[in-house]
């Protein structure tokens, strides 16, 4: 509790046996848990108790896991620091006085602090990988469609995936094995076996990277802080010592990933969050006036400033006269990023970069400058735009602050990045 990693600490007991029997798993508070409140870090849902389980929660229970509680997060997943939570900021257990990253900051913090063996986060633009990197743990963002989103409270549907956080790549892979697989309640899920692979993720964590070719996109390294770059290149040396080869590659499109990501994510958010009307659920209601007045006041009280900012900017970018200028151009950029990655994977097996170009911010440091916070997502957002799998592994510290290395694979290439990552952590 000292790090404020949990919003609700409540044990949910799974089956007696299964692959996760005897293991504790913390669950991000935007994943529905039947009978246990699910707040999304928002006042709007402070009292919301889902009447059903998310598919991933159902699968945890089936696998025998003990759920420890619901973890703190940026409100509706909108943030890179876990400071926009209505339930207060989380402190980074690996770097006191600093943010844990976000938006799944609570999930990464409880694993880093040893309060849970494993955790689930969600990653829309880096929200699993960023906190994993900042807290010195492992996080995986799966290929879009590998894991069901049923019961995940939506922020930006076309970008987000549920992903595991753990102390080692092998443990993260074990958890991924439990939650992955098609679900008829999420029509965007796809079966990995239809894409030339299978679900034996944990077995892939064998550290065998003999002959693996690693591409390093210069655009994602040049912008990083010097101390981050130093740790990154040292880890590339380690990979080469273990039998891999590395070469620089170029992905010119990623220079536009952050702005494309934010236009698309904010657009989807402005539509998704229209459901919070204070009638079906949400803050108490009982306001004077007609539907529009009551709706607008419920949302004034229920949403924090970052959520309002994103709803308004998304509304603006989708409004008459601006759709071509912002939203369609962002979709072009998204297609361009996808093509760039496709071309890169014709030449190399995996891509590597620093997960975050910066080390963890001090608590409170970035709150007044949203654009600065958005720019920190430069290396993680391209992966969501391209629907690809990626993981973050810890690669030491600079000035006492954790540094993460990101490995990106082709679609359904989870086993490849797990194998590569397991050579490091």
């Amino acid at each position, binding site marked *: 509790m000292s790090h404020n990693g949990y919003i609700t600490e409540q044990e949910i007991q799974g089956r007696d046996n299964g692959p996760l029997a005897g293991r504790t798993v913390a669950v991000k508070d935007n994943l529905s848990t039947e009978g246990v409140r699910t707040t999304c870090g928002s006042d709007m849902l402070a009292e919301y108790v889902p009447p*059903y389980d998310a598919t991933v929660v159902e699968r945890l229970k089936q696998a025998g896991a003990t759920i420890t509680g619901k973890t703190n997060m940026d409100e509706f997943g909108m943030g890179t620091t876990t400071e926009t939570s209505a339930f207060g900021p989380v402190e980074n257990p690996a770097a006191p006085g600093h943010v844990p990253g976000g938006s799944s900051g609570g999930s990464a913090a409880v694993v880093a602090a040893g309060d849970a063996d494993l955790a689930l986060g969600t990653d829309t633009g880096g929200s699993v990988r960023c906190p994993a990197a900042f807290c010195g743990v492992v996080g995986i963002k799966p290929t879009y469609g590998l894991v069901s989103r049923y019961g995940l409270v939506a922020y930006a549907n076309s970008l987000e995936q549920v992903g595991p956080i753990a102390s080692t790549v092998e443990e993260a892979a074990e958890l991924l094995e439990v939650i992955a697989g098609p679900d008829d309640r999420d029509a965007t899920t796809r079966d990995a076996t239809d894409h030339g692979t299978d679900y034996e993720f944990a077995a892939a964590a064998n550290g065998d990277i003999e002959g693996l070719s690693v591409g390093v996109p210069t655009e994602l390294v040049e912008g990083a802080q010097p101390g981050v770059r130093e740790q990154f290149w040292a880890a590339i040396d380690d990979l080469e010592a273990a039998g891999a080869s590395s070469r620089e590659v170029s992905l010119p499109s990623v220079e536009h990933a952050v702005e494309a990501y*934010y236009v698309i994510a904010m657009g989807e958010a402005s539509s998704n969050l229209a459901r919070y009307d204070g009638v*079906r659920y949400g803050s*108490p209601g009982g306001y004077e006036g007609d539907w529009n007045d009551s709706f607008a006041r419920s949302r004034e009280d229920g949403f924090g400033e970052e959520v309002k900012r994103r709803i308004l*900017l998304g509304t*603006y970018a989708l409004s008459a006269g601006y759709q071509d200028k912002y939203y369609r151009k962002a979709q072009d950029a998204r297609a361009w990023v996808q093509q760039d990655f496709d071309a890169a994977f014709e030449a190399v097996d995996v891509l590597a970069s620093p997960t975050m170009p910066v080390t963890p911010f001090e608590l409170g440091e970035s709150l007044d400058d949203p654009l600065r916070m958005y720019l920190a997502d430069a290396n993680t957002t391209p992966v969501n735009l391209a629907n690809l799998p990626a993981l973050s592994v810890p690669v030491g510290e600079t000035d006492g602050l954790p540094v993460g290395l990101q490995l990106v694979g082709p679609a359904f290439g989870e086993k490849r990045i797990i194998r590569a990552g397991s050579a490091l952590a």
Partner: protein
Amino acid sequence: MTEDTTESDRNGESDTVTDVGSDPVEADASEAMAAETESEAVDVGTVEHVADLARVNLESGERERFVGQFADILEYFETLDEVPEVERDPELTNVMRPDEISESLDRAETLRNAPETEDGQFKGPRVS
């Protein structure tokens, strides 16, 4: 914020990164000024209009802060103009299934989170 500053943020020169916004009061003031001088597109009226479209009332201070922040963020979004036209791969397919009756939540469970209900239905404010 000028485009130059944005560029150097991306290039991660740590001095610039650390200095930006270190004084919130001053940053707000300079942002508001930048909005006035550099972007005629965003003013208080724009923010109010979008807030109205989105049915979100703003608290005091938010409106003013958003003017400067939106000017910065939208200016940054405008770099999307540099993106070339890309031939998009229309590999999307609809996933269909037969429409079959299956179990669903019962009415009481569905209404449990509603602030107000009446006769087994959601109760909302008057429409106009």
